[in-house]
């Protein structure tokens, strides 16, 4: 009895869904987002920006966006992309867990006429579109900045990302090449997993047998914010903070502001310290831009296979506080946000792109587009 009723409901529901999709299919493009892990700030922000882009008035009646999460499991992403193709996707925006493992499934999707566009990570299959920054360049430029600050033959600590990933391998290799050429010695190296929490543990381990004074500089893929906090805890003054090349978190950006800058909501280490920094990150707006490009392709425009984003580099000289964080304001050059608005110092601040006037601070924070 129950099962028959249930079946009836389900059939009715699926019929309704069928008619609904049939109606929508005429007007809206079916676009899927296949994310990796949602367990960190970067991923959450990137997903917010994609959602905000889809909700923007330019896209809201063109795009029907569905978000799925594959976790850290490439196998599952393969299966998910297959399922999305089966579900009738027009385009799939992907945060690829592996640059190579998806190749076959992506090729198959392309053959069925589905547009595949990857952001941040890269898919090496030639039919896929990629929106990324040049990771080798990132490693090189930041290491050169550090060498410039500390001079040749200095001693540095290094925190890498997730071992076994292309992004980590490219950044670390490029940086080490620069260090070697300048005679800079890497006195300690640990795996930072791109997490402030891990950075804290690993830096503690590295410093158990040495002192901050024994080191000249830091090259940390993620961890400068934490490193500065630890130096202050260890009794060093803001002037003594070591030069640090690292992540583009808002906490780090605030620390780069000159000491004494009025900043609403600042507390503890999340405050202006005048830290010597170069701040970079894979920009979280890449997902939103990928969606925009996908839609323009669906509307018949040509898009290059590889979109290389400009490196979002901010140094202590170029850091500037935003008042509201609107796209217009960021266009004028601000790149750090008030702690009273962005309460999480690990939040990534590289959200401005000249190509995405649809999304600003609210997009990254809560998934709301600019008006």
């Amino acid at each position: 009895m129950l099962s028959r009723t249930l079946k009836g409901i389900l059939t009715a529901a699926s019929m309704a869904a069928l008619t609904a999709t049939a109606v929508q299919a005429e007007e809206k493009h079916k676009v899927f987002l296949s994310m990796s892990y949602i367990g960190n700030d970067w991923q959450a922000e990137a997903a917010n920006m994609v959602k905000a882009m889809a909700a923007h008035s330019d896209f809201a009646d063109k795009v029907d966006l569905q978000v799925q999460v594959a976790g850290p499991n490439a196998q599952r992403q393969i299966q998910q992309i297959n399922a999305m193709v089966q579900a009738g996707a027009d385009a799939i925006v992907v945060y690829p867990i592996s640059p190579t493992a998806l190749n076959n499934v992506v090729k198959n999707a392309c053959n069925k006429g589905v547009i595949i566009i990857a952001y941040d990570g890269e898919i090496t299959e030639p039919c896929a579109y990629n929106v990324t920054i040049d990771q080798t360049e990132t490693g090189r430029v930041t290491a050169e900045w550090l060498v410039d600050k500390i001079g040749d033959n200095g001693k540095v600590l290094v925190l890498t990302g997730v071992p076994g990933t292309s992004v980590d391998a490219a950044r670390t290799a490029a940086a080490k090449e620069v260090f070697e050429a300048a005679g800079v010695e890497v006195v300690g190296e640990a795996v930072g997993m791109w997490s402030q929490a891990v950075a804290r543990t690993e830096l503690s381990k590295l410093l158990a047998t040495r002192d901050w004074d024994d080191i000249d500089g830091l090259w940390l893929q993620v961890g400068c914010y934490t490193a500065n906090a630890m130096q202050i805890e260890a009794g060093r003054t803001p002037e003594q903070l070591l030069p640090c090349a690292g992540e583009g978190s808002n906490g780090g950006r605030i620390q780069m502001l000159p000491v004494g800058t009025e900043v609403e909501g600042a507390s503890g280490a999340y405050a202006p310290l005048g830290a010597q920094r170069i701040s970079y990150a894979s920009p979280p707006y890449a997902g939103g831009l990928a969606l925009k490009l996908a839609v323009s392709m669906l509307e018949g425009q040509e898009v290059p296979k590889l979109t290389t984003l400009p490196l979002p580099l901010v140094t202590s000289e170029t850091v500037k506080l935003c008042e509201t964080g609107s796209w217009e304001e960021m266009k004028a050059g601000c790149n750090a946000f008030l702690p009273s608005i962005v309460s999480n110092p690990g939040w990534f601040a590289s959200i401005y792109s000249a190509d995405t006037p649809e999304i600003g601070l609210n997009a990254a924070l809560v998934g709301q587009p600019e008006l």
Partner: protein
Amino acid sequence: MSRTKAPTRQKEASSMQIKQGLRRYQAVIVALSVFVGLFGLTNLISPYPISYFDISFMASGGMTLALAAMGQTLVILAGGFDLSAGAIISLVNVVLATQMDPANFEASVTLWTMTGIGVGMAVGAFNGFFVAILRLQPIVVTLATMFIVQGLTLLIMDKPGGFVSPSLGSAYLGDAIPNLLPASIVLILVVLVFWFWLKNTRYGMALYAVGSDPVAAEATGIRGTLTLFMTYVLAGGFYGLAGVFVSAQTGSGDPLVGNSLLLPMFAAVVIGGTRLGGGKGGLLGTVFGAYILMIVVNMLLTLNISAYYSTVAESCVLLLAVLAGSMSKHSPLAQKLQGARDYLSARRKGLLVSQRDYVDRRLSFASKTLSEATGEHVSWFRKNATTLRYTLPAYVALLIVLIVTQLTLGNVFDKFGYWNTLLVLSSFLAILALGQGAVILTGGLDLSIPWTIALSGILVAGIVQGSDAALIYAVPIVIAVAVVIGFLNGLGVVALGLSPIVVTLAMNGLLQGAALLWSDGTPAGFAAPALRWVMTGRLLGVTPVIPFLIVFVIFAVLMLGRTAFGRRIYALGNSEEAARLSGVKTGRVLISVYILSSLCAALVGILLTGFSGQASLGMGDDYLLPSIAVVVVGGALITGGRGHYLGMLGGALLLTAMQMLLAGTSLPYAFRAVFFGFVILAAVIALREKKG
């Protein structure tokens, strides 16, 4: 008369047989029906009819997991546990991707399949050697192997790339009969035929016998050692084949490709009706289990369920499938309900023991200590010989690590800074060791630790929002949540009679969903300054958490060693049945132990938040395997009943000291992983039980 009765008796016998068969295959049948049901449902709700291509995709999509889970099933049938499975898949993948000639698009499928299986079997033999021949605990051996293999994999290939010939892809993902039968389905059938043959060989019989009762198996003349060794080798072969399949599917190499398959693999085995602990189950059920997990992913997509619920949905499928598979008159749940009914009716009739007059019927023991009995003074060392035997190795190893650190990096023995860091960093594992250790002492395992830590951290940071005053109510709230988590874990184990691994694995998924929903994907808020001070400030020259840790250690030692609760835990771990018959309320003790574990995890979550200043979603992920490792390295037996908290503390200090040593060197991460694995292996070899 007898002539007329005989056929009915026969009929009865045959219907009995059918019933027995049904019961025996109940789990497989349930798994099959769940799979068919989900498949039908997906078909029903999907806007497009399912075509041959869709079936082909699904078959290949769940294939890697199915193959790997089949290998894992063999190990579990033999009473073991294999944590190295995912790592072996990655290893085979990178071996193939680096060794194949990029110019050769027609590489031999047989040759490379054999290579993959061979690599898998070689690692399996490594596991088998330590587990079967040296009789070490499988969970630790395979944990060590996992680290070693992960390191080797990164040495072979440090980033995704390489080339796998398309011939492999077309062989495994193409069609056996175009538009009728995908090659992957043929592969799974071939493997299943192999299994049904294997099951009926002498080895197959021995496998079930060894898994059910190794001692009895040994007594009936079964060569347990050989059977166990063979099992690990065969399982390695399955992982190898899974690695070959991944290579074919992806056409390239990725050193991390298999690592995340480990937990789904256990879920697939359990959903398929194989009992953790050994002796019951089979590979057919596992195949259905793997495909159920796969189809759930598709369903979530078709139903457009928020990503936050995906782990929740998977946990529910896991729990329901396992419950349905074990449902019978003899299931613990049914027995518990029956017991409760009996209790109530006995109470009504006034027959309960507790309702009778209390008379002290205890036998009077001539209680004598060892020295009184022998009449001579027994040294402290002799009295505690066993404990020392299992506790000391961790400290000896710690001393060696400290000396090596002093020699290579310096600043160990002459500066307090090193010790301060060592103790602060060890505090997380030391606290977890009490909870996980107590669970392990009862013969269980708590896999819900990672997200209990994360949820607690996120709650405390979110509630206090950087205010000291808010700690007064934030901490009790977090503790209350932890008690509920532990209680539910314990209830699942005791009342539903499910394996602790299943219950806590499902709980972990539920908690992940809860954490995501509560924080809406981005945890907000800060640790209160007081909390930060505890982890990073200074009190009389030391970090304030250190005195707290000392108090905690004293408390833990007293609780496990000097209280009735502690003794009951050990009693339970040695024999639950014996403990119950001696009057231990086993259910209550078990539930308390899981609550203790959740409380410890919550405490670590709070302290970690203080340490980092904020909470993050994945903050507990790095603590699950170490929490098990420190307990075992500290001398505890994974099957329960043996272990001392001071040993576990030594394990925590040793692991942390070793990581500090490795972090200070410029060795590449890959070497460190290999080295770490060998140290764990060396530690368990030192703890090996002497025969006889």
